């Protein structure tokens, strides 16, 4: 047999591969972009910031342009520095950011899925290709497959089945969230699998395809070793992706910025973005719903503090620099506020006591009304003589029948505790029907109204837009460290998260002999002599 030098082949194979990959990638990105720009015409991501469309500032002379009033002249003159066909610097930045966002997100999801599918196909078809190719290419030269070899067929089949189930269980789950950056471990594993399979192919193509090896059992064993190694890579994936973060390593403190609600959770070794995801999922279960109506009292107090003082500049403008003036103004305000006798703490105290009393009174009335309402309904027993069909009600009708007697008390209570926007009439009746169906007591029915529950409990519109922004000084793919701080911003409030490392715990053992538990009486006697 003549020996062939493998070196001249390898660069050729590699060059072909790289060319295919680059062309495929380029083509894909162009396709994504074309899709995105065609979609954008119909209103983009629904972001609250307005996108500037050229032509929006044209003075529309037609009365059909909404409320055409005397202000149209003002709007045209207010657009300074831009004409209808040019864009200012901010517009450009805004548009590119919008483009980036929308293209980035969707494109990334498609790209991820495509890569996953390609990799999966590569992984599953490779062993089969290894087994089938010799039969196709040089069937006459091939040794026939003996018993051991056929036993290996069964082994390959079952291992591939197990690998299929395992990959399905681990990777094909519905995505929970869209994270800002790639998931580093997954990318590493994908690269590892790809390199692994490519190296197996290289070896196969050089040593077996080229030399047309006739030892079929060796080829089958080679395929089996590939599948074994893939199963081990899957084990590595399980350890890296699932097991590593189970052991708690950090204790994070999550504080809501609007009202100070704080919770503590234990997390394992995670990257900042995955930790943020875990925290958001806990937030929906644990934190009571964010109620902006409860914050209005402190805001009005703060406004009153500021409104009490006015600063007049007697010396007239132009004396000092603007900064010096502002500083002296604020200092004067603080000094005056400290000196004046503030009785707002008194008002707060009495107001809170009064509110507490009112709430308790309304609550008492509500409980009595609901208990009375529940006594009007009874579950119909089967043994009772059949009542007229008009009398027999399903839960929904029963709820509607007893709801009016408690509606007023419930509404007053919700108004006093400023919860009325969280519960609609429809939702209350639904909840009542649910409680009646499940034989709940009036107290169980009232529980969801007396205490504010977690955000999960309320309707979908209260989930406050599932769009969260992660603000962090460190890169979000870095791991959590002791003292790392990041902020999760939502529309109305933000969650400030601090991580602390759980310290190394040194435990020692002390043995106590059960026979060592002995006791004596303590005496103090007095004897007269």
């Amino acid at each position, binding site marked *: 047999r003549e020996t062939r030098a493998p070196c001249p082949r390898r660069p050729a194979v590699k060059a072909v591969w790289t060319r295919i990959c680059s062309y495929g990638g380029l083509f894909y990105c162009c396709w994504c972009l074309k899709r995105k720009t065609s979609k954008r015409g119909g209103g983009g991501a629904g972001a609250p910031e307005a996108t500037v469309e050229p032509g929006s500032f044209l003075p529309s002379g037609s009365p059909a342009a909404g409320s055409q009033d005397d202000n149209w002249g003002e709007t045209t003159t207010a657009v300074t520095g831009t004409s209808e066909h040019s864009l200012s610097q901010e517009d450009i930045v805004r548009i590119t950011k919008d483009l980036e966002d929308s293209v980035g997100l969707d494109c990334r999801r498609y790209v991820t899925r495509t890569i996953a599918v390609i990799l999966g196909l590569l992984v599953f078809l490779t062993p089969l290709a290894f087994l089938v190719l010799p039969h196709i290419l040089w069937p006459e030269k091939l040794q026939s497959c003996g018993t051991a070899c056929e036993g290996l067929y069964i082994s390959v089949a079952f291992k591939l089945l197990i690998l299929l189930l395992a990959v399905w269980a681990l990777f094909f789950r519905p995505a929970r969230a869209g994270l800002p950056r790639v998931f580093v471990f997954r990318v590493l594993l994908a690269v590892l699998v790809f390199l692994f399979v490519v190296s197996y192919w290289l070896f196969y193509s050089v040593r077996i395809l080229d030399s047309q090896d006739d030892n079929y059992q060796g080829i089958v064993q080679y395929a089996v070793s590939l599948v074994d190694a893939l199963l081990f890579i899957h084990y590595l994936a399980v350890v890296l992706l699932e097991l590593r973060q189970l052991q708690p390593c950090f204790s994070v403190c999550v504080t809501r910025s609007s009202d100070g609600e704080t919770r503590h959770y234990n997390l394992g070794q995670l990257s900042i973005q995955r930790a943020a995801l875990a925290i958001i999922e806990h937030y929906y279960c644990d934190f009571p719903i964010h109620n902006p109506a409860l914050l209005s009292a402190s805001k009005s107090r703060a406004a009153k503090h500021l409104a009490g003082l006015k600063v007049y500049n007697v010396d007239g403008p132009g004396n000092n620099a603007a900064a010096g003036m502002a500083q002296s103004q604020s200092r004067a305000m603080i000094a005056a506020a400290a000196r004046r006798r503030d009785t707002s703490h008194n008002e707060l105290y009495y107001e809170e006591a009064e509110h507490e009393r009112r709430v308790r009174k309304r609550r008492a009335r509500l409980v009595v009304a609901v208990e009375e309402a529940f006594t009007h309904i009874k579950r119909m027993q089967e043994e009772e003589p059949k009542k007229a069909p008009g009398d027999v009600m399903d839960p929904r009708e029963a709820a509607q029948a007893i709801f009016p007697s408690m509606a007023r008390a419930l509404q007053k209570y919700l108004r006093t505790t400023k919860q009325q926007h969280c519960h609609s009439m429809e939702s209350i009746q639904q909840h009542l029907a649910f409680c009646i169906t499940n034989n709940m007591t009036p107290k169980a029915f009232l529980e969801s109204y007396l205490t504010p529950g977690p955000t999960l409990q309320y309707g979908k519109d209260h989930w406050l837009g599932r769009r969260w922004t992660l603000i962090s000084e460190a890169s979000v793919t870095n791991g959590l460290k002791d003292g790392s701080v990041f902020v999760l911003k939502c529309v109305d409030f933000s969650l400030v998260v601090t991580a602390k490392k759980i310290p190394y715990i040194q435990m020692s053992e002390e043995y106590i002999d059960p026979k060592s538990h002995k006791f004596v009486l*303590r005496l*103090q006697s007095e*004897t*007269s*002599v």
Partner: protein
Amino acid sequence: MSFVPGKPVTAVVQIIEIQKLRQGDNLILGFSIGGGIDQDPGQNPVSEDKSDMGIYVTRITPGGPAEVADLRVGDKIMQVNGWDMTVVTHDQARKRLTKKNEKVVRLLITRKSL
């Protein structure tokens, strides 16, 4: 006033002689004692140092021989007729004070005001 093991105990003492009074079949002294090495010193109501296991006078019968002899509540008895009372059990102390053949007891007592 509590003793440190291994070191000599020093105190300023006063000698008090009490004549026993005959009451029926008994000779009484007219006071009560508390304390002892088998007792809990922390519960001693009259002692200054709550780790002191000495014998203390806890009560004086008004008009009795002890009051006549100027014994006071809170006095610590160091010796009785030459017998040491600083390291004795409660029962031993009682026995040394109520010997039937002694008519007079000579106490060495110490108190803070000395």
